[in-house]
């Protein structure tokens, strides 16, 4: 009987995230830190990103002057 067929269970949020490409191990590592440690880690990352972008801008300007 078709009415006896149950729909497949919905994947839970973590399964959906994995399928979406989220790295759960990264989240689990972050959850071991205090909120302040998480902010400090992100602050270091954004500073590195800004420094990289600045260097890339300088390099591009030098190339344009050649």
């Amino acid at each position, binding site marked *: 009987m078709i009415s006896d067929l149950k729909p497949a269970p919905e994947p*839970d*949020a*973590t399964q*959906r*995230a994995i399928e*979406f490409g*989220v*790295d*759960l191990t*990264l*989240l*689990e590592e*972050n*959850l071991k*830190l205090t*909120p*302040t440690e*998480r*902010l400090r880690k*992100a*602050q270091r*990352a*954004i*500073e590195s*990103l*800004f420094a990289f972008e600045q260097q890339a801008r300088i390099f591009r300007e030098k190339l344009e002057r050649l």
Partner: protein
Amino acid sequence: MNTPQIELILATLEREQVAYIMIGGWAVIAHGSGYITRDTDLCYQRTPENIQRLVRALEPLHPYLRGAPPDLPFRFDARTIESGLNFTLTTDAGDLDLLGEVAGLGTFERAAIFSEQMELFGFPVRVLSLDGLVRSKKAAGRPKDLLILPELEALLALKNRIVNHKS
């Protein structure tokens, strides 16, 4: 564009006892996401007293309208804040968005229901909860908001697992 300096912004607001909720990227990070943010988003309480405190706190960081021509006659004062709602600013501590309302939640008072207190850099800071972030991101509905939803929902599930495991 200056690098966002979250500790400096929080210390500045704490000094004047400003009532606000940390929302957006830094809130997402505080909850455990690996997200990187380029600005700081805050929802501030729109009472005259709090607006005065907000202006006093942020003045030393030289706030200015982001993207506006440098000769625009913009004054960051209580009158300006009272006559507007949301402000996208550039400051010495990076880009700062001051929002009078959070998408899907409403004013500071409504959003506060969906917030939790965290200790950040030694300061007590009201941070939008994961549930509040999910609601606001869904309501905002922009592609960049929807992209972070699976991660936020996974964080909620992981945190619930940790709580259940402890109890």
